[in-house]
């Protein structure tokens, strides 16, 4: 009796159909509404965290000197270029004096002329003084003669008149002499002024430093106040950092900082907070601070390079801590999903300080030992069914 063919057929059929039914069963229970949500869970522990502040800064020079003419003119010559080191008082260049020298010459000539005018006026005064003296003596004499009846009253009057005329003329001459003297003073003062201006045409380095930019070339016109050269002191480089206002109430002078230059991202440098600016930026809502390098990196970083600055605040005492991935918002409250048995419970919490790695202190709402959901595959509700796994990534989605 050949029983085999049928049994084998049934067996092969089962071998084909059974995995299909198992796959179907798997699919039904593991996807769709029947499937539980995978989550990872952690236990709340006391940890001591080190909060830090993070900001972006630019490298700046503490002092920046702009050298330029005080008067509009044409740049005559420039001796130094970008990158040159200069010493205080060094002459860097010169504006074109144009008619300045001629004006000095004119002024000198005017002074000479004024001196000559004074001499003439003095001579005139002397002359008139002599005449006045003479007519004064004459008037006196005729007065005497009138008394003696040797001369007519008319004649005495006439001599008196001559005397008065001579005196007036003398006054005029003295006044003219004064004018000439004032003019000389004025021209002399002008002379001083012209000499000052002449020296201003020279561009002088105010401090020792390095030239960072050269804006105008010789031959071009520069306006009064325009910058021709910029100089900085390379040793006075610091970083102008912007911190988000929300976090920075702990920022004080003297805190240690880590500086990462954009061009040297794997060579962090250390520094300190040198100054907190009193003026914050209301538009960008940032606080400004200045951070100095402990040791200036070699070679010097260029001005304007971006840096990332992290200021470490003092370490805090140990307190219950959760990762910020656990914190959710529900109905206007901050809280976490606590695991009780296999149910979820939304627990409102109050948070304290957090650090830059996302660890947040809990001031109210949780105790050490509470189990809290950290990561989940989808949004959770109080009715969600969960299954705890070790990790949600690396195992497929």
């Amino acid at each position, binding site marked *: *009796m*050949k*029983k085999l*063919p*049928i049994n084998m057929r049934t067996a092969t059929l089962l071998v084909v159909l059974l995995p299909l039914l198992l796959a179907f069963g798997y699919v039904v229970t593991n996807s769709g509404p029947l499937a539980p949500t995978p989550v990872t869970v952690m236990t709340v522990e006391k940890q001591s965290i080190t909060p830090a502040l993070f900001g972006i800064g630019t490298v700046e020079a503490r002092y920046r000197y702009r050298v330029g003419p005080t008067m509009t003119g044409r740049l005559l010559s420039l001796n130094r270029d970008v990158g040159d080191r200069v010493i205080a008082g060094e002459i860097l260049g010169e504006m074109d004096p144009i008619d300045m020298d001629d004006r000095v010459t004119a002024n000198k000539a005017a002074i000479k002329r004024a001196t000559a005018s004074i001499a003439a006026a003095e001579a005139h005064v002397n002359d008139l003084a002599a005449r006045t003296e003479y007519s004064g003596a004459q008037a006196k004499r005729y007065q005497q003669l009138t008394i003696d009846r040797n001369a007519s009253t008319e004649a005495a009057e006439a001599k008196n008149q001559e005397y008065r005329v001579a005196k007036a003329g003398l006054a005029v001459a003295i006044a003219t002499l004064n004018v000439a003297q004032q003019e000389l003073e004025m021209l002399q003062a002008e002379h001083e002024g012209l000499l000052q201006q002449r020296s201003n045409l020279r561009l002088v380095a105010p401090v020792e430093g390095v030239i960072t930019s050269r804006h105008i070339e010789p031959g071009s016109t520069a306006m009064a106040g325009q910058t021709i050269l910029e100089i900085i002191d390379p040793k006075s480089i610091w970083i102008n950092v912007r911190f988000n206002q929300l976090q920075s109430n702990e920022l004080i002078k003297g805190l240690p900082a880590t500086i990462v230059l954009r061009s040297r991202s794997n060579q962090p440098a250390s520094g300190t907070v040198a100054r907190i600016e009193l003026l914050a930026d209301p538009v960008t809502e940032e606080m400004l601070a200045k951070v100095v390098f402990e040791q200036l990196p070699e070679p010097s970083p260029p001005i304007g390079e971006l840096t990332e600055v992290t200021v470490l605040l003092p370490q805090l005492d140990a307190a219950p801590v959760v990762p910020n991935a656990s914190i959710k918002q529900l109905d206007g409250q901050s809280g976490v999903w606590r695991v009780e048995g296999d149910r979820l419970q939304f627990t409102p919490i109050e948070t304290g300080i957090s650090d830059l790695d996302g660890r947040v202190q809990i001031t109210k709402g949780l105790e050490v030992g509470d189990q809290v959901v950290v990561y989940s595959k989808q949004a959770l509700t109080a009715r969600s069914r969960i299954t705890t796994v070790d990790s949600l990534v690396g195992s497929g989605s």
Partner: protein
Amino acid sequence: MKEHTGIFIEGMRKRYGEGDTAVDALKDVNMRVMPGEVIGLIGPSGSGKSTLLKCLGAVVEPTAGRMTLGNKVIYDNGWLIKDLRALRRDNIGFVFQAPYLIPFLDVTDNVALLPMLAGRSNAESRKRAVELLEALDVAHRAKAMPSQLSGGEQQRVAIARALVNQPPVILADEPTAPLDSQRALSVIRILNQMAQQYQTAIIVVTHDEKIIPTFKRIYHIRDGGTHEEVGEGKDLE
């Protein structure tokens, strides 16, 4: 053992079409087959042979006449039985030119299907089937599928199926046509055995020269009419 009275036809007529274009496939057929008899039905094609078979098999309604099957009048110028299918199932066995076994049932179930259709339990049906298979000497293939049997074995299974419900009549349509003379005679021998054993009336439609000599009685059919002839009745051995 049931008591049969065989099959009895009087004045059967079958007309196709109406009016001028009407054709009488059967004009006036009379036939009588007793239980235990194996008779031959011989006729050329177009003689109405197939029509007669279809009327005998209750698949076609005759136009007029009278037909008695078993001990019931089943047709008298109109079917007297409502459920022809049940009639066929319980009273007529068919053996065709080709075995026409159900390919997806094994040999036993092919035969057991009929009693199951009649309402018998599966166990009893299978028991009966096996009995018949044994009688036809094909029981050793009881669990095989029809495609695994030889032509002769399949034919024997078909005969078993025709017999399993112990119908009063078996209609065999050219059962030996594809077989060689030895096997053909073997089939006829079996039919005779079964007819005797179960007292069934068997009508064999054939034009196979090899087996015609074995019939004791033969009906010739021509142009829709039959006439009887006594056959040679040669012994089968």
